[in-house]
C-alpha cells in the first residue's frame, strides 16, 4: 500500500454523522471555529446596526431603553468573547500544527472539546434572547447595577454562567496551544526560528492561563451574590463593589491583548510575504510581542482612573499603559520598514494589513491620550472611549482577520478569492470604519456619554451621529463584499495550488486543502523561512519520518527542537461532544436553579470523562 494511502487510512475521519460529531482533526475543528466566529461577528454586527439606527437622530423611538441596553450588551459580549478571541483560535487551531509540521494539536480530543464548549456557551448566551431577558449591564457588568436588586430577572445570570462556561473552553484551548507549540515543533525549528504567529499565540495563551481565572472568580462571586445571597459586592454587609472592577480588569486588560496580539502575529506573517522579503527586526517583533503580554498584566487600573485612588498608584498604571505603546511602535515600525524596503505585491490581503496599521496608529494614539489621567477624567465613559476601543478592536482585529482570510483561505478551500472585489471590499470597509468611528472622537469631547439610548437635539450631536450611522452601514457593506467574495470563490475561484503567494512558511508546502495527515514526511527546518531557503524540508531518503505505524507525530524539545519522542495521537472520539452536553445541562440547570438537574449534569460529565480517558489500543493501519 502506498504511504499516502496508509496515512489517509490512519488519519481520516469517516464522512458519517458519527464522524461529524466525533472528529478530532484540527483542520475540521479550525474550520468550525472560523465559521462559528464569523457567524457571531455577523450577529454582533447586526446588533450594532440596530443600535446605530436608534442613534441616527435625536429622540428616536426604534428601541425601548431596556431593549437598547440588552442589544448594546449583547453586541459587546458577542464581539469581545464569542468573536474576537475564537476567530483567532480558529486560525491557530487550523494553522499551528501545519506551521510546525505536526500532524495535529498536542491534545486532539481536548481540541474538539474546546470547540463544542465554545459553541454551546454561545448558544447558552443567546438562549437568553429567547426568553427576552438578555444581559443588559454592559460587557463589564459593573456592580451594584448588575446585582439582583437593580437587575432582577435572569439576564445577568446568563451573562455570568455563559462566561464561566466559555472560560473553561478558552483555558483548555490555551493549554493545548502552549503544549503544542512547546512540544510538537518540527525538528530544527528552534525557538528563534518560529514563525511570529506562534510567538503571539504562545504569549496570549500564557496570558489566558494566568488572567482568565480572574474572570472566573468575578463571575462566581457575581452569581452567588445574585442567586444565593452572598455579599461580596454589597456595601451594607461589608462588601466592596470595587472588587468586581478590580477582578474584571485584572482579567480584562490582558484580554485586550489576547484579542489583539495574534492579529499582529498574522500581519507579521503575511506582510513580509507580500513585501517579498523577511520581516525587519524579527527578534524585536518577537520580544515586543512577549513584552506586550507581560506588561499587559500591569495596566488594568487604567480602566478605573475615575474611581478615586492614590496618586502614586494611578501614576504607576498610567506609565505602564504608555509603555505598551513602545512595544506596539516597535512592531509598527518593523512592518513599515518591511514594506518600505520590500517589493510590494499589493494584494487585497496586503491592503487590509496596511489598513490595519493605519487604524492601529489612530487607535494607539487616542489610547495614549486616554492613558493620561486628566484627559481620561474628561473623556471617561464618553464616545471618545467608544471610538478608541473600536479603532483598536475593529482596526486591529477585524481588519487583520480579513487580511488573514484573503491570505489563508486559499489554503483551506483550495480556491483564491477575487482580488478586485477584495480591493473594493477593503476601500469600502476602510472608509466606512473611519466614517463611523472618527466622528465619535468629537462626540466624546463634546460630552456625549456612551450607552445612552437616545439624546436630545440641539446639543450639537445630530450631524455626527448621522454620519456615524451612515458609516456603520458602509462598513457593513464592505465586509459583506468579502463574505460574497468568499462564497463565490468556493465554486468560481481560481485554483490556488500549493503556494499561491510564494510564501515562506511550512503550511504552504502542503496541498490546498491539506491532506488529513498534513505532510507525508514530518519536515525538518533549518531557517526561519523554510520555503525560501535552498534546503528541502521533507527530504527523508529512508522514510524515517513518515511515521505510518500508527497515529503518530514527532515530539521535540521545547527550546532547541531536537527530536525527543514519538507522540501518539488519540483517534476520533464522541466523548468530548457528549461531555459538553452534560456541561450544558449543568449550566442550564444552574440558571433555572434546578439543583438535582445540575447534579445530573455533573455526574454525566464525570462518567463521560472517565470513558473518554480510558486507555484504548493503538490504532493501526489495516
Amino acid at each position, binding site marked *: 500500500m502506498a504511504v499516502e494511502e496508509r496515512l489517509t487510512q490512519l488519519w481520516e475521519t469517516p464522512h458519517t454523522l458519527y464522524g461529524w460529531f466525533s472528529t478530532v482533526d484540527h483542520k475540521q475543528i479550525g474550520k468550525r471555529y472560523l465559521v462559528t466566529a464569523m457567524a457571531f461577528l455577523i450577529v454582533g454586527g447586526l446588533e450594532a446596526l440596530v443600535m446605530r439606527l436608534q442613534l441616527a437622530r435625536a429622540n428616536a423611538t426604534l428601541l425601548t431603553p431596556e431593549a437598547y441596553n440588552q442589544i448594546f450588551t449583547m453586541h459587546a459580549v458577542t464581539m469581545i468573547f464569542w468573536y474576537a478571541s475564537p476567530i483567532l483560535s480558529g486560525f491557530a487551531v487550523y494553522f499551528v500544527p501545519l506551521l510546525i509540521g505536526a500532524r495535529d494539536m*498536542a*491534545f486532539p480530543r*481536548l481540541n474538539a472539546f474546546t470547540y463544542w464548549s465554545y459553541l454551546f456557551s454561545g448558544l447558552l448566551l443567546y438562549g437568553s434572547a429567547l426568553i427576552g431577558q438578555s444581559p443588559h449591564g454592559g460587557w463589564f457588568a459593573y456592580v451594584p447595577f448588575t446585582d439582583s436588586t437593580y437587575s432582577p430577572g435572569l439576564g445577568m445570570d446568563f451573562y455570568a454562567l455563559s462566561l464561566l462556561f466559555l472560560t473553561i473552553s478558552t*483555558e483548555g484551548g*490555551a*493549554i*493545548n496551544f502552549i*503544549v503544542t507549540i*512547546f*512540544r510538537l515543533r518540527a*525538528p*530544527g525549528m528552534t525557538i528563534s526560528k518560529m514563525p511570529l504567529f506562534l510567538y503571539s499565540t504562545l504569549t496570549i495563551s500564557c496570558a489566558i*492561563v*494566568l488572567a*482568565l*481565572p*480572574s474572570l*472566573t*472568580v468575578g463571575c462566581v*462571586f457575581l452569581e*452567588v*451574590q445574585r442567586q444565593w*445571597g*452572598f*455579599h*461580596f459586592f454589597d456595601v451594607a*454587609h*461589608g*462588601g466592596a463593589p470595587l*472588587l468586581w472592577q478590580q*477582578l474584571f480588569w*485584572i482579567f480584562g486588560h490582558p484580554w485586550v491583548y489576547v484579542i489583539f496580539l495574534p492579529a499582529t502575529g498574522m500581519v507579521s506573517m503575511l506582510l513580509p510575504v507580500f513585501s*517579498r*522579503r523577511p520581516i525587519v527586526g524579527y527578534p524585536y517583533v518577537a520580544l515586543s510581542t512577549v513584552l506586550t503580554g507581560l506588561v499587559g498584566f500591569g495596566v488594568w487600573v487604567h480602566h478605573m482612573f475615575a474611581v478615586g485612588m492614590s496618586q502614586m498608584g494611578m501614576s504607576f498604571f498610567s506609565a505602564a499603559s504608555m509603555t505598551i505603546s513602545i512595544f506596539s511602535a516597535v512592531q509598527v515600525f518593523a512592518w513599515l520598514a518591511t514594506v518600505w524596503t520590500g*517589493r510590494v*505585491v499589493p494584494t487585497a490581503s496586503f491592503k487590509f494589513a496596511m489598513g490595519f496599521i493605519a487604524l492601529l496608529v489612530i487607535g494607539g494614539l487616542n489610547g495614549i491620550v486616554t492613558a493620561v489621567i486628566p484627559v481620561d477624567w474628561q473623556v471617561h465613559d464618553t464616545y471618545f472611549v467608544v471610538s478608541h476601543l473600536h479603532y483598536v478592536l475593529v482596526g486591529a482585529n477585524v481588519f487583520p482577520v480579513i487580511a488573514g482570510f484573503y491570505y489563508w483561505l486559499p489554503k483551506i478551500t483550495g480556491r483564491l478569492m477575487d*482580488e478586485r472585489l477584495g480591493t473594493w471590499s477593503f476601500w469600502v470597509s476602510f472608509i466606512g470604519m473611519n466614517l463611523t468611528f472618527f466622528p465619535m472622537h468629537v462626540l466624546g469631547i463634546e460630552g456625549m456619554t456612551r450607552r445612552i439610548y437616545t439624546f436630545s437635539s440641539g446639543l450639537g450631536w445630530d450631524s455626527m451621529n448621522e454620519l456615524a450611522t451612515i458609516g456603520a452601514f458602509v462598513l457593513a457593506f464592505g465586509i459583506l463584499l468579502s463574505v460574497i467574495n468568499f462564497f463565490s470563490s468556493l465554486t468560481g475561484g481560481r485554483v490556488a495550488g500549493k503556494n*499561491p*503567494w*510564494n510564501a515562506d512558511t511550512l503550511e504552504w508546502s502542503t496541498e490546498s486543502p491539506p491532506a488529513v495527515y498534513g505532510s507525508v514526511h514530518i519536515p*525538518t527546518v*533549518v*531557517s526561519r*523561512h523554510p520555503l*525560501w*531557503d535552498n*534546503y528541502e524540508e521533507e*527530504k527523508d*531518503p*529512508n522514510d524515517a*519520518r513518515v511515521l505510518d505505524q500508527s497515529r503518530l507525530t514527532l*515530539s521535540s524539545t521545547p527550546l532547541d527542537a531536537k*527530536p*525527543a*519522542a*514519538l*507522540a*501518539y495521537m488519540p483517534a476520533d472520539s464522541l466523548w468530548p461532544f457528549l461531555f459538553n452536553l452534560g456541561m450544558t445541562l449543568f449550566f442550564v440547570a444552574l440558571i433555572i436553579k434546578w439543583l438535582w438537574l445540575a447534579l445530573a449534569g455533573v455526574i454525566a460529565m464525570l462518567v463521560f470523562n472517565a470513558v473518554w480517558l480510558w*486507555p484504548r*489500543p493503538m490504532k493501526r493501519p489495516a
Partner: protein
Amino acid sequence: MAQTDEEARMSTIALDRLPPEVASHPPLVTTLDERRGTAGMWLFILTEAALFILLFFSYFYLAQGGWRWLGEEPPKLRLAIPMLVVLWISSAVLHWGERQVKAARYSRARTGLGLTILLGVIFLVMQAFEYMDHLKTLTPRTNVYGSIFYTITTFHAAHLILGLLMLCYALALPQYEPVNHPPHRPYHNTALYWHFVDFVWFWIIIFLYIGPNIR
C-alpha cells in the same frame, strides 16, 4: 498572483552551513512521548493556582488589607491544623506510592493510592464537622466575611473532591503500564494535582485560620 521566476529566485535564501543535527537526519526516536499530559497538568495547576491567588487577593481586599476582620471572631484551629496534618500525611503516602510504581511494585502502589483516598475522605469528614461547628456563628449570608470564608474553603473542598475522583480513577486503571500509555504517567499526573490541592490548604491555614488569630 502572478509569480515570475525571477521573483521566486529573489526570495531564496542560500544556506551554506546546515546545523549538523538537522542535516544528518537523526535516526528515528523510538520512545513514546510521555510529557504532554504532564505538561498539560502543570499548566492546569498553574491556572488553578492563579484562581486561588485571586481568591486570596479578594479575601485581603475585602478585609481592607488586614489579617484580622473587625468585629469577627477568628476561626478555631482545633480541627483545621489536624486537617493540614492529614493532608500532609496523604501527600507523603502518595509520594511513597509513586516511588513504588517506578520500582514496578504495583500492588504496593495501589495500596498507596487507596490510603491516600482514605485520608482524603477523612479530611472531608473533618471539614464537615468543622463547617457544622462554624456555621453556628457564621454563614455565607451573614456578611462578606462569611461569604469569602466559605467560598474559599468550598472551592478548596471542590478541588479536593476532584482530586479524589482522579485518584479513584488512577486506582481503577487496568494496569500501570498499559501498552499505549507510558509508565507511571497517570499516577504521576494525578499525584501532582493532589500535592497542589494539599499545598493550597496550607495557605488557607496561614491566611484564613492562623492570620486572624494572631494578636
